[in-house]
């Protein structure tokens, strides 16, 4: 960014209330080629981009989070407002583009009025005039410009009509930048907030009387309709603006119906939830197969040695475990993006607010929690939308309890082991039960943590839920997809290096120091030979030492060091547990029946010291319980640290969830044994 300062490229910052068409304008000006910048030391995130070259404006464009007013309420809002005054990397904005929904001038003019009186170089961009026209009205640009004493331009986000005018205004502003004195920008008066805001609203009401005009003043009108219009006008003036969109009210009669509204909400969320699994499943299998094939390709074609295994088991499998979740995360963001763009997500937050507030959460916690069922990492990042810090931290705290998709392969294996072959339908019921159980436990944990919140979260703020319910509209697929693409990319670059890094460390621990085991390999195929070598190597590796070290802890829950090793490996990514079990229990085939072979060798496995059967119903059920609770994902810990701004919460999460997992497993295993289930 330093070069930008050197050549003095003007900075144009986009600012506006939520739902004012700000992102649409940003997409038009940037051509969707944006990158994200984090405000140092915080979670507030911005998009920046150069203005598209075809517009002939050489300027940096910065998109800021939507704000209602210049007086911040939460810490995140404070950062957003502060960056308007001076962004630490990009400096003071030369021009502020402020988007305003022309149907909502009555509310949306508050922010531009505040910005103008603070001394910013403001251009007001009026959006959604096509919707206003449907109501037979228009806004006079020139009159509004005179009243506000700043440039006003109408831009249609769909047809791009009016964009030329905006570009012209920006260009002439850039030419006259030397006339604008940045030092004259003053901090917005924060004393007597309510009175000042009220004063501005009275001014806005006066302005509105002047700037709204009928669309067709010359239209011939007969007396009856004239009377009707007069009546309408009278009603509207008593309302100081407009009544809400008719269609939206009609839809809300169903979607926000007292009873059916909630039923529909549960259905929509259920569908969202299942789509994460069903739609993504074939793609995930494809990614998984691709990397498995790539792995064996490397092993077969290169000389066996530590470097070949570093590439195949370390780098390729590590990359695979990052990318295998991309389809799911992409679909999750896509579905949530469509719901958000249509206006439904805000309603969902409203419907679920009451039950969530009982356990110290907020209606806005809901989307992050649902996302947690795909992967905790994007879910923790999504918690940024919760303005209240305490509620945000509590949401982040319980997200690791949401049963993320990495646990699915583990559950699948263990359930397959538990149920008799002729009763495969039982598996679905058990899996459903596991998910239900994980929802219930997260509610209980949130409730308990909320009781101790004063000790854990130092922030003490009053809880609040005031949310605009936007007008329903058809989601704009192209912008949702480009946003989804960017969010998925963010996941890969944020979580990817961490997961890959830990996979490499674990590869090292499971490979060294016993790198070339001497074993009898007569009569074995190449694949079998390699698998035997791998398990021999693992048995004498550092990871095995570690596993034997924790064996005293594993014993009370009926397990031995081999499961211990697999549990440790699962810290890189939970699904690694399955392949690690396969290694430790010497599964010596490499055909498609590997799960069956794994199941068989699990059935035969015995605890070495006592000779008892290792995988009994009790211990397998115990393992499932362990995976429900344990925070076995180092990427989650890293993201949690970053998003909460310290080690306190991630360390508490690891300690509480892992010890909870251990205790619950202990209770499950020994409880089942007590009742005669082995």
């Amino acid at each position, binding site marked *: 960014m330093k070069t930008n300062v050197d050549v003095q490229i003007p900075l144009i910052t986009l600012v506006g209330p939520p739902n004012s068409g700000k992102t649409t304008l940003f997409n038009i000006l940037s051509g969707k080629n944006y990158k994200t910048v984090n405000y140092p030391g915080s979670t507030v995130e911005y998009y920046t981009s150069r203005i598209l070259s075809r517009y002939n404006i050489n300027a940096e464009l910065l998109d800021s989070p939507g704000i*209602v007013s210049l007086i911040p309420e939460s810490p995140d809002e404070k950062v957003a407002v502060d960056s308007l005054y001076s962004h630490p990397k990009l400096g003071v904005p030369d021009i502020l583009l402020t988007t305003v929904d022309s149907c909502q001038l009555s509310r949306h003019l508050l922010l531009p009025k505040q910005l103008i009186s603070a001394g910013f170089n403001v251009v007001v961009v009026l959006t959604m005039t096509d919707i206003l026209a449907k109501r037979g009205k228009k806004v006079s640009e020139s009159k509004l410009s005179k009243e506000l004493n700043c440039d006003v331009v109408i831009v249609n986000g769909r047809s791009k009509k009016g964009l030329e005018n905006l570009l012209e205004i920006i260009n002439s502003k850039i030419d006259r930048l030397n006339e604008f004195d940045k030092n004259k920008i003053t901090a917005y008066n924060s004393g007597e907030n309510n009175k000042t805001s*009220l004063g501005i609203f009275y001014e806005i009401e006066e302005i509105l009387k002047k700037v709204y005009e009928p669309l067709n003043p010359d239209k011939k009108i007969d007396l009856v309709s004239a009377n009707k219009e007069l009546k309408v006008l009278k009603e509207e003036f008593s309302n100081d603006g407009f009544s809400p969109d008719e269609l939206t009210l009609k839809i809300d009669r169903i979607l*926000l119906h007292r009873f059916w509204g909630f039923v529909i909400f549960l259905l929509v969320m259920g569908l969202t939830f299942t789509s994460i699994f069903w739609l993504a499943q074939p793609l995930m299998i494809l990614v998984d197969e691709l990397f498995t094939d790539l792995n064996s390709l490397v092993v077969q074609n290169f000389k066996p040695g530590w470097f070949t295994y570093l590439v195949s088991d370390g780098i390729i499998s590590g990359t695979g475990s990052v990318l295998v979740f991309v389809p799911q995360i992409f679909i999750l963001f896509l579905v949530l993006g469509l719901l958000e763009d249509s206006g439904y997500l*805000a309603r969902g937050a409203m419907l679920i*607010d009451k039950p969530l507030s009982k356990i110290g959460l907020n209606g806005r916690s809901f989307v992050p929690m649902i996302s947690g069922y795909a992967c905790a990492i994007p879910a923790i990042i999504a918690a940024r939308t919760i303005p209240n810090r305490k509620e945000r931290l509590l949401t982040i705290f319980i997200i690791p309890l949401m049963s993320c998709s990495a646990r699915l392969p583990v559950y699948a294996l263990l359930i397959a082991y538990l149920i008799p072959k002729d009763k495969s339908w039982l598996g679905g019921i058990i899996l459903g039960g596991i998910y239900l159980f994980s929802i219930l436990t997260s509610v209980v944990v949130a409730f308990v943590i909320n009781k101790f919140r004063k000790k854990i979260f130092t922030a003490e703020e009053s809880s609040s839920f005031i949310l605009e319910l936007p007008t329903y509209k058809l989601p704009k697929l192209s912008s949702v997809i480009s946003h989804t693409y960017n969010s998925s990319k963010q996941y890969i670059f944020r979580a990817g290096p961490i997961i890959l890094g830990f996979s490499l460390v674990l590869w090292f621990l499971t490979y060294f120091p016993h790198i070339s085991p001497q074993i009898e390999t007569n009569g074995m195929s190449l694949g079998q030979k390699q698998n035997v070598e791998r398990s021999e190597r693992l048995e004498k590796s550092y990871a095995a030492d570690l596993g034997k070290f924790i064996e005293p802890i594993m014993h009370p829950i009926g397990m031995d060091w081999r499961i211990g090793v697999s549990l440790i490996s699962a810290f890189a990514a939970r699904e690694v547990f399955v392949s690690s079990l396969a290694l430790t229990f010497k599964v010596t085939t490499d055909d498609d029946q590997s799960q069956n072979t794994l199941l068989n060798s699990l059935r035969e496995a015995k605890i070495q010291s006592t000779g008892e059967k290792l995988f009994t119903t009790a211990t397998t059920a115990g393992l499932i319980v362990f995976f429900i609770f344990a925070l076995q994902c180092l990427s989650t810990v890293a993201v949690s640290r970053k998003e909460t701004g310290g080690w306190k919460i991630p360390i508490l999460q690891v300690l509480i969830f892992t010890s909870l997992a251990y205790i619950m497993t202990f209770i499950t295993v020994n409880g089942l044994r007590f009742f005669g289930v082995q």
Partner: protein
Amino acid sequence: MRTAAELNYGEIGIISEIDSSHPSSKRIIEHGFTPGQTIELINKSIFNDPIAVSVRGTLIAIRKCEAGCIKLK
């Protein structure tokens, strides 16, 4: 004195004042709830809380305890 929290379905009220001692009063005003404005209760959620109120042509979802500081004429 009645407040916005006590509105019935479809009932219209005119705001007389906002209780500025409430911590959310600032945010409530910034969303356009100012004295003299007409508001209407549009929907309630299944648990009766939050409620959806129309003000200045926009629907706002607000918790009942916060709507309680919007005093009506």
